[in-house]
Protein backbone atom coordinates (compact mmCIF):
# COMPACT_ATOMS: atom_id res chain seq x y z
CA UNK A 1 0.00 0.00 0.00
CA UNK A 2 2.76 2.43 0.96
CA UNK A 3 4.49 1.75 -2.37
CA UNK A 4 1.30 2.47 -4.24
CA UNK A 5 0.86 5.75 -2.33
CA UNK A 6 4.47 6.74 -3.00
CA UNK A 7 4.19 6.02 -6.72
CA UNK A 8 0.84 7.79 -6.96
CA UNK A 9 2.07 10.92 -5.19
CA UNK A 10 5.31 10.92 -7.20
CA UNK A 11 3.22 10.52 -10.36
CA UNK A 12 1.01 13.44 -9.34
CA UNK A 13 4.09 15.58 -8.65
CA UNK A 14 5.47 14.67 -12.08
CA UNK A 15 2.05 15.55 -13.51
CA UNK A 16 2.21 18.89 -11.72
CA UNK A 17 5.57 19.65 -13.30
CA UNK A 18 4.31 18.65 -16.76
CA UNK A 19 1.26 20.83 -16.21
CA UNK A 20 3.34 23.89 -15.30
CA UNK A 21 5.27 23.44 -18.54
CA UNK A 22 2.23 22.51 -20.63
CA UNK A 23 -0.05 25.29 -19.34
CA UNK A 24 2.13 28.00 -20.89
CA UNK A 25 2.43 26.04 -24.13
CA UNK A 26 -1.33 25.59 -24.29
CA UNK A 27 -2.03 29.25 -23.49
CA UNK A 28 0.40 30.42 -26.18
CA UNK A 29 -0.99 28.01 -28.75
CA UNK A 30 -4.58 28.89 -27.86
CA UNK A 31 -4.20 32.59 -28.58
CA UNK A 32 -1.33 32.70 -31.01
CA UNK A 33 -1.32 29.37 -32.86
CA UNK A 34 2.39 29.18 -32.10
CA UNK A 35 4.01 25.85 -31.26
CA UNK A 36 6.75 27.24 -29.06
CA UNK A 37 9.75 24.93 -29.13
CA UNK A 38 11.75 27.46 -27.07
CA UNK A 39 9.48 26.77 -24.10
CA UNK A 40 11.78 24.07 -22.76
CA UNK A 41 14.66 26.54 -22.70
CA UNK A 42 12.56 28.95 -20.60
CA UNK A 43 12.05 26.02 -18.19
CA UNK A 44 15.80 25.33 -18.11
CA UNK A 45 16.63 28.98 -17.54
CA UNK A 46 14.06 29.14 -14.76
CA UNK A 47 15.79 26.18 -13.12
CA UNK A 48 19.26 27.74 -13.49
CA UNK A 49 17.98 31.14 -12.31
CA UNK A 50 16.54 29.46 -9.21
CA UNK A 51 19.77 27.49 -8.63
CA UNK A 52 21.88 30.66 -9.02
CA UNK A 53 19.61 32.71 -6.74
CA UNK A 54 19.57 30.12 -3.97
CA UNK A 55 23.34 29.78 -4.29
CA UNK A 56 23.82 33.53 -3.97
CA UNK A 57 21.61 33.81 -0.89
CA UNK A 58 22.84 30.67 0.86
CA UNK A 59 26.10 29.23 -0.50
CA UNK A 60 26.56 25.54 0.20
CA UNK A 61 24.85 22.24 -0.47
CA UNK A 62 21.73 23.11 1.53
CA UNK A 63 19.57 26.03 0.38
CA UNK A 64 17.84 28.41 2.75
CA UNK A 65 14.13 29.13 2.88
CA UNK A 66 14.84 32.79 2.07
CA UNK A 67 16.81 31.79 -1.01
CA UNK A 68 14.05 29.45 -2.13
CA UNK A 69 11.38 32.14 -1.67
CA UNK A 70 13.49 34.62 -3.64
CA UNK A 71 13.94 32.00 -6.35
CA UNK A 72 10.14 31.70 -6.50
CA UNK A 73 10.17 35.30 -7.75
CA UNK A 74 13.30 35.21 -9.88
CA UNK A 75 12.61 32.00 -11.86
CA UNK A 76 9.27 33.13 -13.34
CA UNK A 77 10.66 36.62 -13.95
CA UNK A 78 13.56 35.19 -15.95
CA UNK A 79 11.17 32.96 -17.91
CA UNK A 80 8.85 35.91 -18.60
CA UNK A 81 11.68 38.23 -19.67
CA UNK A 82 13.15 35.66 -22.06
CA UNK A 83 9.73 34.88 -23.53
CA UNK A 84 8.85 38.56 -24.01
CA UNK A 85 12.21 39.20 -25.68
CA UNK A 86 11.70 36.27 -28.07
CA UNK A 87 8.16 37.37 -28.91
CA UNK A 88 8.97 41.03 -29.48
CA UNK A 89 12.37 40.48 -31.07
CA UNK A 90 11.66 37.53 -33.34
CA UNK A 91 8.17 36.05 -33.43
CA UNK A 92 6.23 39.27 -34.02
CA UNK A 93 7.52 39.40 -37.57
CA UNK A 94 6.61 35.78 -38.26
CA UNK A 95 2.93 35.40 -37.35
CA UNK A 96 1.95 34.81 -40.96
CA UNK A 97 4.69 32.17 -41.39
CA UNK A 98 4.08 29.12 -39.15
CA UNK A 99 7.03 27.12 -40.49
CA UNK A 100 9.40 29.99 -39.73
CA UNK A 101 7.94 30.16 -36.21
CA UNK A 102 8.77 26.51 -35.64
CA UNK A 103 12.31 26.94 -36.98
CA UNK A 104 12.95 30.12 -34.99
CA UNK A 105 11.61 28.78 -31.68
CA UNK A 106 13.52 25.53 -32.22
CA UNK A 107 16.69 27.50 -32.91
CA UNK A 108 16.18 29.80 -29.93
CA UNK A 109 15.56 26.79 -27.71
CA UNK A 110 18.78 25.08 -28.83
CA UNK A 111 20.78 28.31 -28.52
CA UNK A 112 19.50 29.11 -25.04
CA UNK A 113 20.18 25.56 -23.82
CA UNK A 114 23.66 25.70 -25.32
CA UNK A 115 24.22 29.04 -23.63
CA UNK A 116 23.60 27.46 -20.22
CA UNK A 117 26.32 24.90 -21.07
CA UNK A 118 28.71 27.69 -21.97
CA UNK A 119 27.99 29.75 -18.84
CA UNK A 120 27.60 26.99 -16.24
CA UNK A 121 29.25 23.97 -17.93
CA UNK A 122 27.28 21.06 -19.40
CA UNK A 123 27.44 18.66 -16.44
CA UNK A 124 24.55 18.22 -14.03
CA UNK A 125 24.59 20.17 -10.78
CA UNK A 126 22.81 19.32 -7.53
CA UNK A 127 19.93 21.65 -6.76
CA UNK A 128 20.13 23.03 -3.21
CA UNK A 129 16.85 22.89 -1.31
CA UNK A 130 15.90 24.00 2.19
CA UNK A 131 16.00 21.11 4.65
CA UNK A 132 12.23 21.11 5.14
CA UNK A 133 11.68 20.79 1.39
CA UNK A 134 14.07 17.90 0.92
CA UNK A 135 12.74 16.11 4.03
CA UNK A 136 9.99 13.50 3.79
CA UNK A 137 6.53 13.22 5.31
CA UNK A 138 4.76 9.97 5.98
CA UNK A 139 1.43 9.38 4.22
CA UNK A 140 -0.28 6.04 4.90
CA UNK A 141 3.09 4.50 5.53
CA UNK A 142 4.79 6.02 2.49
CA UNK A 143 7.70 8.41 3.02
CA UNK A 144 7.14 11.11 0.43
CA UNK A 145 9.56 14.03 -0.19
CA UNK A 146 7.95 17.34 0.77
CA UNK A 147 8.86 18.94 -2.55
CA UNK A 148 6.28 16.62 -4.16
CA UNK A 149 3.51 18.20 -2.10
CA UNK A 150 4.75 21.70 -2.84
CA UNK A 151 4.87 20.92 -6.55
CA UNK A 152 1.32 19.55 -6.53
CA UNK A 153 0.12 22.56 -4.51
CA UNK A 154 1.82 24.98 -6.91
CA UNK A 155 0.18 23.33 -9.92
CA UNK A 156 -3.26 23.52 -8.25
CA UNK A 157 -2.72 27.22 -7.48
CA UNK A 158 -1.54 27.89 -11.06
CA UNK A 159 -4.53 25.99 -12.50
CA UNK A 160 -6.98 27.96 -10.33
CA UNK A 161 -5.19 31.21 -11.16
CA UNK A 162 -5.27 30.54 -14.88
CA UNK A 163 -8.95 29.62 -14.85
CA UNK A 164 -9.69 32.83 -12.95
CA UNK A 165 -7.50 34.80 -15.35
CA UNK A 166 -9.26 33.35 -18.39
CA UNK A 167 -12.79 33.70 -17.02
CA UNK A 168 -12.70 36.85 -14.91
CA UNK A 169 -10.19 39.25 -16.42
CA UNK A 170 -10.31 41.37 -19.56
CA UNK A 171 -7.04 39.84 -20.79
CA UNK A 172 -8.57 36.43 -20.25
CA UNK A 173 -11.48 37.45 -22.45
CA UNK A 174 -9.02 38.67 -25.07
CA UNK A 175 -7.19 35.32 -24.97
CA UNK A 176 -10.39 33.30 -25.31
CA UNK A 177 -11.77 35.52 -28.06
CA UNK A 178 -8.40 35.69 -29.82
CA UNK A 179 -8.24 31.91 -29.92
CA UNK A 180 -11.49 31.99 -31.94
CA UNK A 181 -10.98 35.00 -34.22
CA UNK A 182 -7.89 37.14 -33.84
CA UNK A 183 -8.88 39.63 -36.54
CA UNK A 184 -12.22 40.35 -34.94
CA UNK A 185 -10.48 41.06 -31.64
CA UNK A 186 -8.46 43.72 -33.46
CA UNK A 187 -11.65 45.02 -35.04
CA UNK A 188 -13.00 45.66 -31.54
CA UNK A 189 -10.13 48.09 -30.91
CA UNK A 190 -7.91 45.71 -28.95
CA UNK A 191 -4.14 45.76 -29.43
CA UNK A 192 -3.55 42.10 -30.25
CA UNK A 193 0.23 42.54 -30.46
CA UNK A 194 0.34 43.66 -26.84
CA UNK A 195 -1.95 40.78 -25.83
CA UNK A 196 0.44 38.38 -27.61
CA UNK A 197 3.43 39.74 -25.70
CA UNK A 198 1.59 39.50 -22.36
CA UNK A 199 0.45 35.94 -23.04
CA UNK A 200 3.88 34.85 -24.27
CA UNK A 201 5.49 36.38 -21.16
CA UNK A 202 2.92 34.70 -18.93
CA UNK A 203 3.67 31.36 -20.60
CA UNK A 204 7.39 32.00 -20.08
CA UNK A 205 6.78 32.81 -16.42
CA UNK A 206 4.96 29.51 -15.94
CA UNK A 207 7.82 27.68 -17.65
CA UNK A 208 10.32 29.44 -15.38
CA UNK A 209 8.29 28.49 -12.32
CA UNK A 210 8.09 24.94 -13.66
CA UNK A 211 11.87 24.97 -13.98
CA UNK A 212 12.27 25.79 -10.30
CA UNK A 213 9.91 23.02 -9.21
CA UNK A 214 11.33 20.62 -11.80
CA UNK A 215 14.78 21.19 -10.35
CA UNK A 216 13.43 20.49 -6.87
CA UNK A 217 11.69 17.33 -8.12
CA UNK A 218 14.76 15.89 -9.84
CA UNK A 219 17.21 17.28 -7.27
CA UNK A 220 19.61 18.33 -10.02
CA UNK A 221 19.77 20.58 -13.08
CA UNK A 222 21.45 20.29 -16.45
CA UNK A 223 21.16 22.17 -19.76
CA UNK A 224 18.78 19.57 -21.23
CA UNK A 225 16.31 19.55 -18.34
CA UNK A 226 13.77 21.59 -20.31
CA UNK A 227 14.11 19.96 -23.70
CA UNK A 228 13.64 16.45 -22.23
CA UNK A 229 10.48 17.44 -20.38
CA UNK A 230 9.18 19.59 -23.25
CA UNK A 231 8.46 16.43 -25.25
CA UNK A 232 6.13 15.19 -22.51
CA UNK A 233 4.59 18.65 -22.13
CA UNK A 234 3.73 18.66 -25.85
CA UNK A 235 2.15 15.23 -25.44
CA UNK A 236 0.13 16.57 -22.49
CA UNK A 237 -1.08 19.55 -24.57
CA UNK A 238 -2.09 17.33 -27.49
CA UNK A 239 -3.86 14.74 -25.31
CA UNK A 240 -5.59 17.46 -23.26
CA UNK A 241 -6.69 19.38 -26.35
CA UNK A 242 -4.80 22.28 -27.92
CA UNK A 243 -5.60 25.50 -26.08
CA UNK A 244 -7.49 23.84 -23.20
CA UNK A 245 -5.98 24.54 -19.78
CA UNK A 246 -8.37 22.12 -18.04
CA UNK A 247 -7.52 19.52 -20.66
CA UNK A 248 -3.81 20.00 -20.02
CA UNK A 249 -4.35 19.49 -16.27
CA UNK A 250 -6.32 16.29 -16.85
CA UNK A 251 -3.84 14.95 -19.40
CA UNK A 252 -0.88 15.79 -17.15
CA UNK A 253 -2.39 13.71 -14.34
CA UNK A 254 -2.98 10.78 -16.71
CA UNK A 255 0.52 10.98 -18.19
CA UNK A 256 2.28 11.49 -14.86
CA UNK A 257 0.56 8.53 -13.21
CA UNK A 258 0.88 6.28 -16.27
CA UNK A 259 4.58 7.03 -16.56
CA UNK A 260 5.31 6.40 -12.87
CA UNK A 261 3.29 3.22 -12.58
CA UNK A 262 4.59 1.99 -15.94
CA UNK A 263 8.18 2.54 -14.86
CA UNK A 264 7.67 0.92 -11.47
CA UNK A 265 5.96 -2.26 -12.59
CA UNK A 266 7.90 -2.93 -15.78
CA UNK A 267 11.03 -0.74 -15.52
CA UNK A 268 10.78 -0.05 -19.26
CA UNK A 269 7.13 0.75 -20.10
CA UNK A 270 6.74 4.27 -18.63
CA UNK A 271 7.57 6.25 -21.79
CA UNK A 272 6.01 3.58 -24.00
CA UNK A 273 2.66 3.90 -22.22
CA UNK A 274 2.76 7.67 -22.73
CA UNK A 275 3.34 7.33 -26.47
CA UNK A 276 0.66 4.64 -26.65
CA UNK A 277 -1.83 6.96 -24.92
CA UNK A 278 -0.94 9.71 -27.39
CA UNK A 279 -1.53 7.38 -30.33
CA UNK A 280 -4.89 6.21 -28.95
CA UNK A 281 -6.11 9.78 -28.33
CA UNK A 282 -5.01 10.92 -31.80
CA UNK A 283 -6.86 8.01 -33.38
CA UNK A 284 -10.02 8.05 -31.27
CA UNK A 285 -10.38 11.73 -30.37
CA UNK A 286 -8.00 13.87 -32.46
CA UNK A 287 -9.11 17.14 -30.82
CA UNK A 288 -7.92 15.86 -27.44
CA UNK A 289 -9.81 15.13 -24.24
CA UNK A 290 -11.20 18.65 -23.72
CA UNK A 291 -10.19 20.37 -26.97
CA UNK A 292 -12.67 22.55 -28.84
CA UNK A 293 -14.30 21.31 -32.05
CA UNK A 294 -12.96 22.99 -35.19
Amino acid at each position, binding site marked *: MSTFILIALTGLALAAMYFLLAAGLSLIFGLMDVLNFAHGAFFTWGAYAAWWTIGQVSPGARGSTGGFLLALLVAPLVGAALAAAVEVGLLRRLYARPIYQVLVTLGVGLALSQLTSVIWRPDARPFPQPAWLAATSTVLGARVPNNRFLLIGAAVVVLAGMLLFLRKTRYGLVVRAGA*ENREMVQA*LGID*VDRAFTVVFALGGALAGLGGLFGAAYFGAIDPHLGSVNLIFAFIVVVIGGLGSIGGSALAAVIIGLAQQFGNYYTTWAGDFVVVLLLAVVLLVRPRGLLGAKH
Partner: protein
Amino acid sequence: MTATAAGPSASAVAGEPILRLTDVHTFIGESHILQGVSFTVAPGRVTVLLGRNGAGKTTTLRSILGLAPAARGAIALDGRDITRERPHRIIRRGVGYVPEDRDVFGGLTVAENLRLAQRPGAPRERLALVHDLFPDLARRAAQRAGSLSGGQQQMVAIARALINENRLLVIDEPSKGLAPVVVTQVTEALAAIKGTTTILLVEQNLAMARALGDDAAIIDDGRVVHTGPMAAIAADEALQARYLGAGARN
Protein backbone atom coordinates in the same frame (compact mmCIF):
# COMPACT_ATOMS: atom_id res chain seq x y z
CA MET B 1 -24.72 61.03 -62.17
CA THR B 2 -21.45 59.11 -62.48
CA ALA B 3 -18.41 59.79 -60.34
CA THR B 4 -15.07 58.10 -59.91
CA ALA B 5 -13.66 60.67 -57.49
CA ALA B 6 -14.96 62.26 -54.33
CA GLY B 7 -17.13 64.84 -55.97
CA PRO B 8 -20.38 66.66 -55.36
CA SER B 9 -23.00 64.42 -53.83
CA ALA B 10 -25.75 64.61 -51.32
CA SER B 11 -23.14 64.16 -48.57
CA ALA B 12 -21.21 67.22 -49.68
CA VAL B 13 -24.01 69.56 -48.72
CA ALA B 14 -24.41 68.03 -45.28
CA GLY B 15 -21.08 69.37 -43.96
CA GLU B 16 -17.44 68.27 -43.94
CA PRO B 17 -17.28 64.53 -44.56
CA ILE B 18 -16.51 62.35 -41.57
CA LEU B 19 -14.84 59.84 -43.89
CA ARG B 20 -13.06 60.49 -47.17
CA LEU B 21 -11.53 57.88 -49.46
CA THR B 22 -9.33 59.20 -52.25
CA ASP B 23 -8.10 56.93 -55.04
CA VAL B 24 -7.75 53.90 -52.75
CA HIS B 25 -6.03 50.84 -54.23
CA THR B 26 -6.02 47.57 -52.31
CA PHE B 27 -4.54 44.18 -53.20
CA ILE B 28 -5.54 40.83 -51.74
CA GLY B 29 -2.55 38.64 -52.52
CA GLU B 30 -1.82 39.31 -56.17
CA SER B 31 -5.37 40.44 -56.96
CA HIS B 32 -5.90 44.16 -57.48
CA ILE B 33 -9.32 44.43 -55.79
CA LEU B 34 -9.80 48.17 -55.25
CA GLN B 35 -8.63 50.14 -58.26
CA GLY B 36 -9.07 53.74 -57.21
CA VAL B 37 -12.06 53.95 -54.86
CA SER B 38 -13.10 57.49 -53.95
CA PHE B 39 -16.16 58.66 -52.03
CA THR B 40 -17.15 60.54 -48.92
CA VAL B 41 -19.45 59.87 -45.97
CA ALA B 42 -21.27 62.88 -44.51
CA PRO B 43 -21.79 63.15 -40.75
CA GLY B 44 -25.09 62.07 -39.30
CA ARG B 45 -26.17 60.33 -42.49
CA VAL B 46 -26.42 56.76 -43.71
CA THR B 47 -24.31 56.10 -46.80
CA VAL B 48 -24.94 52.81 -48.57
CA LEU B 49 -22.28 51.04 -50.64
CA LEU B 50 -23.94 49.06 -53.39
CA GLY B 51 -22.54 46.69 -55.98
CA ARG B 52 -22.50 43.16 -57.30
CA ASN B 53 -20.88 40.29 -55.41
CA GLY B 54 -17.11 40.64 -55.75
CA ALA B 55 -17.28 44.31 -56.74
CA GLY B 56 -15.09 45.33 -53.79
CA LYS B 57 -17.60 46.50 -51.16
CA THR B 58 -16.31 44.41 -48.27
CA THR B 59 -12.69 45.10 -49.24
CA THR B 60 -13.51 48.82 -49.15
CA LEU B 61 -14.77 48.48 -45.57
CA ARG B 62 -11.77 46.36 -44.60
CA SER B 63 -9.42 48.94 -46.10
CA ILE B 64 -11.09 51.70 -44.10
CA LEU B 65 -10.56 49.65 -40.93
CA GLY B 66 -6.96 48.73 -41.79
CA LEU B 67 -7.80 45.01 -41.97
CA ALA B 68 -6.93 45.00 -45.69
CA PRO B 69 -4.49 47.92 -45.81
CA ALA B 70 -4.62 50.17 -48.86
CA ALA B 71 -1.50 50.00 -51.03
CA ARG B 72 -2.10 53.46 -52.52
CA GLY B 73 -4.46 56.37 -52.02
CA ALA B 74 -5.67 58.04 -48.85
CA ILE B 75 -8.33 57.40 -46.24
CA ALA B 76 -9.18 60.20 -43.82
CA LEU B 77 -11.39 60.01 -40.74
CA ASP B 78 -12.47 63.39 -39.40
CA GLY B 79 -9.79 64.94 -41.59
CA ARG B 80 -7.00 62.80 -40.11
CA ASP B 81 -5.13 60.40 -42.37
CA ILE B 82 -5.68 56.81 -41.16
CA THR B 83 -4.43 55.01 -44.28
CA ARG B 84 -1.43 53.41 -42.55
CA GLU B 85 -2.87 53.09 -39.05
CA ARG B 86 -3.30 49.70 -37.38
CA PRO B 87 -6.90 48.42 -37.06
CA HIS B 88 -7.23 48.77 -33.29
CA ARG B 89 -6.12 52.41 -33.44
CA ILE B 90 -8.64 53.20 -36.18
CA ILE B 91 -11.40 51.56 -34.15
CA ARG B 92 -10.39 53.54 -31.07
CA ARG B 93 -10.86 56.76 -33.02
CA GLY B 94 -14.55 56.03 -32.74
CA VAL B 95 -15.41 53.44 -35.35
CA GLY B 96 -17.75 50.52 -34.74
CA TYR B 97 -17.62 47.52 -37.07
CA VAL B 98 -20.24 44.89 -37.83
CA PRO B 99 -18.59 42.31 -40.11
CA GLU B 100 -20.26 40.49 -42.96
CA ASP B 101 -20.37 37.10 -41.25
CA ARG B 102 -21.17 38.56 -37.82
CA ASP B 103 -18.05 36.93 -36.31
CA VAL B 104 -19.42 36.74 -32.79
CA PHE B 105 -17.20 34.83 -30.38
CA GLY B 106 -19.18 31.61 -30.10
CA GLY B 107 -17.39 30.31 -27.01
CA LEU B 108 -18.09 33.51 -25.09
CA THR B 109 -21.45 34.42 -23.61
CA VAL B 110 -23.50 37.30 -24.96
CA ALA B 111 -22.47 39.42 -21.96
CA GLU B 112 -18.80 38.55 -22.49
CA ASN B 113 -19.02 39.50 -26.17
CA LEU B 114 -20.35 42.90 -25.14
CA ARG B 115 -17.85 43.31 -22.29
CA LEU B 116 -14.99 42.56 -24.65
CA ALA B 117 -16.25 45.13 -27.14
CA GLN B 118 -16.79 47.85 -24.53
CA ARG B 119 -13.74 50.09 -24.54
CA PRO B 120 -12.35 51.22 -21.19
CA GLY B 121 -14.10 54.44 -20.20
CA ALA B 122 -17.18 53.79 -22.33
CA PRO B 123 -20.33 55.05 -20.56
CA ARG B 124 -22.19 52.31 -18.70
CA GLU B 125 -25.56 53.52 -19.97
CA ARG B 126 -24.65 52.23 -23.43
CA LEU B 127 -25.43 48.72 -22.20
CA ALA B 128 -28.93 49.84 -21.26
CA LEU B 129 -29.31 51.41 -24.70
CA VAL B 130 -28.26 48.16 -26.35
CA HIS B 131 -30.69 46.16 -24.20
CA ASP B 132 -33.49 48.60 -25.04
CA LEU B 133 -32.76 48.05 -28.71
CA PHE B 134 -32.36 44.28 -28.43
CA PRO B 135 -34.28 43.07 -25.33
CA ASP B 136 -33.54 39.47 -26.32
CA LEU B 137 -29.85 40.01 -25.57
CA ALA B 138 -30.56 41.01 -21.97
CA ARG B 139 -32.52 37.80 -21.48
CA ARG B 140 -29.76 35.73 -23.07
CA ALA B 141 -26.78 37.48 -21.44
CA ALA B 142 -25.43 34.25 -19.93
CA GLN B 143 -25.97 32.16 -23.07
CA ARG B 144 -23.04 31.20 -25.29
CA ALA B 145 -23.17 33.31 -28.44
CA GLY B 146 -22.41 30.24 -30.54
CA SER B 147 -25.73 28.70 -29.53
CA LEU B 148 -27.81 31.69 -30.72
CA SER B 149 -29.77 31.82 -33.96
CA GLY B 150 -28.36 33.74 -36.93
CA GLY B 151 -30.62 36.70 -36.20
CA GLN B 152 -29.66 36.79 -32.54
CA GLN B 153 -25.98 36.60 -33.49
CA GLN B 154 -26.51 39.56 -35.81
CA MET B 155 -28.00 41.46 -32.88
CA VAL B 156 -24.90 40.65 -30.81
CA ALA B 157 -22.68 41.84 -33.67
CA ILE B 158 -24.59 45.13 -33.96
CA ALA B 159 -24.75 45.52 -30.18
CA ARG B 160 -20.96 45.18 -29.99
CA ALA B 161 -20.64 48.15 -32.30
CA LEU B 162 -23.23 50.18 -30.37
CA ILE B 163 -21.79 49.51 -26.91
CA ASN B 164 -19.35 52.39 -27.43
CA GLU B 165 -20.12 55.97 -28.44
CA ASN B 166 -18.79 55.81 -31.97
CA ARG B 167 -18.42 58.55 -34.58
CA LEU B 168 -18.93 56.09 -37.41
CA LEU B 169 -20.56 52.68 -37.73
CA VAL B 170 -19.31 50.43 -40.53
CA ILE B 171 -21.85 47.70 -41.16
CA ASP B 172 -21.35 44.94 -43.74
CA GLU B 173 -24.47 43.21 -45.11
CA PRO B 174 -26.53 42.97 -41.91
CA SER B 175 -29.33 41.17 -43.74
CA LYS B 176 -27.13 38.41 -45.14
CA GLY B 177 -28.45 34.94 -44.42
CA LEU B 178 -31.32 36.14 -42.25
CA ALA B 179 -35.00 35.26 -42.48
CA PRO B 180 -37.24 38.10 -43.74
CA VAL B 181 -38.81 38.62 -40.32
CA VAL B 182 -35.37 39.00 -38.76
CA VAL B 183 -34.29 41.38 -41.54
CA THR B 184 -37.27 43.55 -40.57
CA GLN B 185 -36.17 43.49 -36.92
CA VAL B 186 -32.60 44.44 -37.81
CA THR B 187 -33.81 47.19 -40.15
CA GLU B 188 -35.99 48.61 -37.39
CA ALA B 189 -33.09 48.54 -34.94
CA LEU B 190 -30.80 50.35 -37.39
CA ALA B 191 -33.58 52.84 -38.19
CA ALA B 192 -33.84 53.55 -34.46
CA ILE B 193 -30.20 54.61 -34.26
CA LYS B 194 -30.24 56.46 -37.59
CA GLY B 195 -29.53 60.12 -37.00
CA THR B 196 -27.68 59.48 -33.73
CA THR B 197 -24.50 58.40 -35.51
CA THR B 198 -23.01 58.21 -38.98
CA ILE B 199 -23.37 54.89 -40.76
CA LEU B 200 -21.54 53.39 -43.71
CA LEU B 201 -23.60 50.40 -44.79
CA VAL B 202 -22.90 47.67 -47.34
CA GLU B 203 -26.19 46.07 -48.28
CA GLN B 204 -27.45 44.04 -51.24
CA ASN B 205 -31.00 44.01 -49.94
CA LEU B 206 -32.41 47.03 -51.74
CA ALA B 207 -35.45 47.24 -49.49
CA MET B 208 -33.22 47.60 -46.44
CA ALA B 209 -30.88 49.98 -48.28
CA ARG B 210 -33.84 52.12 -49.36
CA ALA B 211 -35.31 52.14 -45.86
CA LEU B 212 -32.07 53.26 -44.20
CA GLY B 213 -29.93 55.01 -46.81
CA ASP B 214 -29.59 58.75 -47.35
CA ASP B 215 -26.70 58.63 -49.80
CA ALA B 216 -25.28 55.84 -51.90
CA ALA B 217 -22.19 54.91 -53.86
CA ILE B 218 -22.10 52.08 -56.38
CA ILE B 219 -18.90 50.07 -56.73
CA ASP B 220 -18.17 48.06 -59.83
CA ASP B 221 -14.91 46.20 -60.53
CA GLY B 222 -13.12 47.95 -57.70
CA ARG B 223 -14.12 51.51 -58.66
CA VAL B 224 -16.90 53.84 -57.56
CA VAL B 225 -18.98 54.32 -60.71
CA HIS B 226 -21.88 56.28 -59.31
CA THR B 227 -22.74 58.38 -56.26
CA GLY B 228 -25.99 60.10 -55.41
CA PRO B 229 -29.02 60.12 -53.15
CA MET B 230 -30.22 56.63 -52.23
CA ALA B 231 -33.77 57.51 -53.21
CA ALA B 232 -32.67 58.39 -56.74
CA ILE B 233 -30.76 55.12 -57.16
CA ALA B 234 -33.68 53.16 -55.75
CA ALA B 235 -35.90 54.71 -58.39
CA ASP B 236 -33.49 54.15 -61.30
CA GLU B 237 -34.14 50.62 -62.56
CA ALA B 238 -31.78 51.00 -65.50
CA LEU B 239 -28.91 51.88 -63.14
CA GLN B 240 -29.76 48.94 -60.92
CA ALA B 241 -29.87 46.56 -63.87
CA ARG B 242 -26.52 47.82 -65.10
CA TYR B 243 -24.54 47.77 -61.87
CA LEU B 244 -26.41 45.68 -59.34
CA GLY B 245 -27.83 42.94 -61.55
CA ALA B 246 -29.33 39.85 -59.99
CA GLY B 247 -27.30 40.37 -56.82
CA ALA B 248 -29.63 43.10 -55.64
CA ARG B 249 -32.53 41.79 -53.56
CA ASN B 250 -35.79 43.62 -53.18
